[in-house]
């Protein structure tokens, strides 16, 4: 079997998502260990520019399905397009981002091709010739090593854990793959809530989240000011989202986004397990909470027991002193 490692890029209106470039990094390490090459794929409607960018990340081949039938998300259409690409590329490993999209389409195409799939991994490595994945399970209360019994196999990787590669290398050839898409039975007809924050939560290197402790929609203002200073994204607990203080797009946790920033600041968040599930792979955790017994302090690297309405503005002022401008 060929040792191609195929990365599936993911994009949205503004262009390819950062995770697409992180996957290339992971693929390069696996290719080095297995003695193979890295290939990439993009799929969607009018995605020529995405393919051009991906082709410059240091891969040997890019496959594209550019089809009007992929304009709106439909699981069956995307599965057919992916199956066509994978069949043509004949890789030993396919890497997806462990985003909602990546997890959904990878499961469907894995079933169609009858491959194994390991979702939501934090590390992918080759041990004695086998692919071994690390993934948090039980909401992060256990870490599993999962071994693929053989190849081919699919994997989805959690975003933000390795640096993205640059698209500054000589362009790889781009090959169009054609596929006849049937009318899908299930399809998106409208996206009603869109991502709109300045900094994408899943990709941000610093996330500042507020919970029930912010007490109301206006309570997020000091967090937003600190986020501006740090070029950070604002996150939230389910309690704050359910109360209607902030949009669902900001929710971190089992039913929201999984984030792995360089620093996660939790303000007025108790640290329920479903919240931790979405942020415990953060590199540094800071907790600000009135209650010294709040569970969040158990996983925090730095903690301040105090009122967030005093601490956050003071912290903002202190950071501005260190980072003028």
């Amino acid at each position, binding site marked *: 079997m060929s040792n191609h490692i195929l990365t599936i890029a993911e994009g949205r209106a503004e262009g390819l998502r950062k995770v697409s470039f992180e996957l290339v990094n992971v693929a390069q390490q696996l290719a080095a260990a297995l003695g193979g090459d890295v290939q990439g794929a993009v799929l969607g409607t009018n995605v020529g520019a995405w393919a051009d960018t991906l082709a410059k990340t240091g891969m040997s081949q890019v496959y594209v399905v550019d089809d009007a039938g992929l304009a709106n998300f439909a699981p069956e259409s995307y599965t057919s397009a992916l199956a066509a690409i994978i069949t043509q590329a004949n890789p030993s490993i396919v890497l997806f981002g462990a985003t*909602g999209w990546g997890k959904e389409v990878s499961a469907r195409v894995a079933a169609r091709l009858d491959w194994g799939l390991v979702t939501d991994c934090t590390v992918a490595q080759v041990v004695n010739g086998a692919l071994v994945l690390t993934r948090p399970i039980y909401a992060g209360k256990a870490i599993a090593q999962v071994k693929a019994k053989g190849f081919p196999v699919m994997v989805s990787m959690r975003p933000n854990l390795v640096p993205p590669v640059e698209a500054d290398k000589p362009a790889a050839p781009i090959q169009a793959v054609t596929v006849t898409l049937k009318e899908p039975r299930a399809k998106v*007809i409208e996206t009603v809530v869109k991502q709109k924050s300045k900094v994408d939560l899943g990709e941000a290197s610093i996330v500042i989240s507020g919970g029930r402790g912010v007490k109301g929609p206006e309570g997020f203002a000091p967090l937003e000011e600190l986020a501006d200073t740090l070029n950070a994204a604002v996150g939230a607990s389910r309690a704050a989202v359910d109360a209607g203080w902030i949009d669902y797009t900001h929710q971190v946790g089992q039913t929201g986004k999984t984030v792995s920033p360089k620093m996660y600041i939790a303000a007025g968040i108790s640290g329920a397990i479903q919240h931790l599930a979405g942020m415990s792979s953060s590199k540094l955790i800071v907790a600000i909470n009135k209650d010294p017994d709040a569970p969040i302090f158990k996983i925090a690297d730095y903690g301040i027991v105090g009122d967030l309405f*005093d601490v956050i503005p003071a912290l903002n002022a202190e950071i501005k002193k260190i980072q003028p401008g």
Partner: protein
Amino acid sequence: MPLNIVVLLKRVPDTESKITIRDNAVVTEGLNFVLDPYGEYGLEKALQLVEQHGGQVTAVLCGPAEAKETIRKALAVGADQAVHIIDPALEGGDAAATSRVLAAALKKIAAEAPGGFDMVWTGKQAVDEDNAQVPVRVAELLDLPHVNSIIEFELGAEGKTARCVREVDGERDIMTTTLPAILTAQQGLGELRYPSLKGIMGAKKKPIADWNASALGLDTATVGKVGAKVEITNLEPPPARPPGKIIPGDAQTAAHELARLLHEEAKVI
């Protein structure tokens, strides 16, 4: 238009429980096992739909003998009947193997009911291994459409289509699908009702069919531990974080010290 609805439910440790690991496995003694929370949301929706339109709800669970108790909970809240897929040969499977088993069970259920089933509710992920892939795989194996992570569901006229609102990646989409379909439930769809005393008593009389691999016509080489394509080779508690520093002082003092630590010690700013 009575509905025939199937709900796939897994038996999982309560999300709040402490996980202890011994010899690469979770210690199950003393663990509190429950219905998987996201599956419960799907079960509630199934019960509501049958209340409105008539029909029946069949709960399906693949798991060990101890799972009988868990299945009774589904019957106690109102499921009409249950299928317990129970066979040591099916244990230790990965998502690929488990979906093969559940797809076979759904085929059998469809074949035994005159019009097949109208829809299958599942959880968006089981909170033990957090795979989030079994329902989507089952949909593909049965050549059915699926809609993931649903928070609102409306049955179309004639019961042949549905309109769903789903939450994925911080976005909210409206999706339409034809039925039958595989539907995965997200928090927000609605909390599962509590069982009444009458429900609990009645559950004892409701039928639970036990099916094994051969009843499902499964080749045991393709399911369970042997049929799995991936396997857990090591399980550990998460690496201990170095004990955190609680920064003393009033807000001003603590904020000053925190900024210094973030800059000089952690070097994140």
